[in-house]
């Protein structure tokens, strides 16, 4: 049963300044949602709240499988993931970075290796698997961030500006990765981006963040 996300009345303020203001939306279709909006409109904040690494001040973030509500525990957190705008690579090899999610889940070595190698091949980084991740270029960092997320086969994937600081060639690679995942129907993807053309190329559903609320466009 595929995972669905419903948020309702979500509010979040930082230092008394409201960022999300009774924000509600249902992510219930499969495919790619694209979230746009001006700088500081709250896209990243919303993604962190949806990915359950931050709590809203108010309102509900509810995950469903079919009609069942899933409790927000570590098991649910392990079915979803967010690729942060800065990625946050660990000071170790490319392989170990991509394997992190599986290792902390106690995955078997063989299986982990196979999945990680596949993910690295998918993003074109297999030849760098033994390099230290902190020596990668920005484009490679983005791709490793995606590979690291793919390795755990999330049912819902949040991508925060996956192509913000990379060149056209790498942007195309990253977009192809996303389109390929969409074709394979692996997960529901929610992408925050400023690139309107990209939004058109990737998105099945366009969303705009405005005054702390999500508007469907």
């Amino acid at each position: 049963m595929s995972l669905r996300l419903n948020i309702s009345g979500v509010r979040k303020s930082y230092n008394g300044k409201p960022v999300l203001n009774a924000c509600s939306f249902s992510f219930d279709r499969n495919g790619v949602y694209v979230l746009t909006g001006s700088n500081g409109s709250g896209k990243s904040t919303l993604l962190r709240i949806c990915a359950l690494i931050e709590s809203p001040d108010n309102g509900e973030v509810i995950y469903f499988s079919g009609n069942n509500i899933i409790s927000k525990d570590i098991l649910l957190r392990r079915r979803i993931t967010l690729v942060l705008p800065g990625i946050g690579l660990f000071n170790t090899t490319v392989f170990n970075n991509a394997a992190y999610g599986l290792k902390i889940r106690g995955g078997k070595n063989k299986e982990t290796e196979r999945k990680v190698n596949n993910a690295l091949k998918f993003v074109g980084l297999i030849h760098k698997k033994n390099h230290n991740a902190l020596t990668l270029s920005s484009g490679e960092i983005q791709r490793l961030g995606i590979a690291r997320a793919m390795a755990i086969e999330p049912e819902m994937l949040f991508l925060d500006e996956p192509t913000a600081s990379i060149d056209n060639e790498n942007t195309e690679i990253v977009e192809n990765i996303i389109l390929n995942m969409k074709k394979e129907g692996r997960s529901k993807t929610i992408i925050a981006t400023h690139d309107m053309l990209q939004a058109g190329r990737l998105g099945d559903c366009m969303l705009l963040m405005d005054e702390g609320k999500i508007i469907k466009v």
Partner: protein
Amino acid sequence: MESIIEGFKKAFSLIFGLDAELLGIIFLSLRVSGTALLIVSIIGLPLSALISLKKFPARGLFISIMNTLMGLPPVVVGLFVYMMLSRSGPIGFMGLLYTPSAMIIAQTILAFPIAVSLCHSAIISVNPIIKQASMTLGATSLQTSVTIIKEARYGIMSGMIAAFGRVMAEVGAILIVGGNIAGYTRVMTTTIALETDKGNFELAIALGIILLTISLAINLLLHFVQRKGALPVNR
């Protein structure tokens, strides 16, 4: 001048002749400071991880105290440990005064705040995105903590090395609580102090050279660790 040259000659013959007394002193120095460092790692590392990663009241106060204690004068520690261990002191019955154990206790007290303070700053200076990334990948809070500590590993190692260097070179505390008993509690620094006092330069010079060499080795190691920690460029 001549006596200095003579002193150096004899010092080198002691070093290269692997003089038994000299080796015993060096070995005891390393044993005392090494054990102190081991105790500090066992107690201090988990403690610094705890105060760095968990919010608890008075954390700021605790760190300020540790920072203050980093500059603790060794003689004051010596005095304190002496009073604790002397026959009329609270744990005088254990008969530890003037034993290597007393020296280990003193050096542990000296190394502790240095290690805790430096490890704490290494852990809190890990970029917060590491914590977030680890959470997004499904880590439990314990796994996230381990990940953060791993990211701080070079800083932690630097802190431990710095603490070791400090206690290796220290003389005030162990002289007071160890008593510089030949063949039992004599370590490099106390021997240098005493032999110089007596005008026996050759052993003092030999030990001085070795102490400097060890100190150089520690600093090279520190430099290497810090460079390794700073190597990756594209962060």
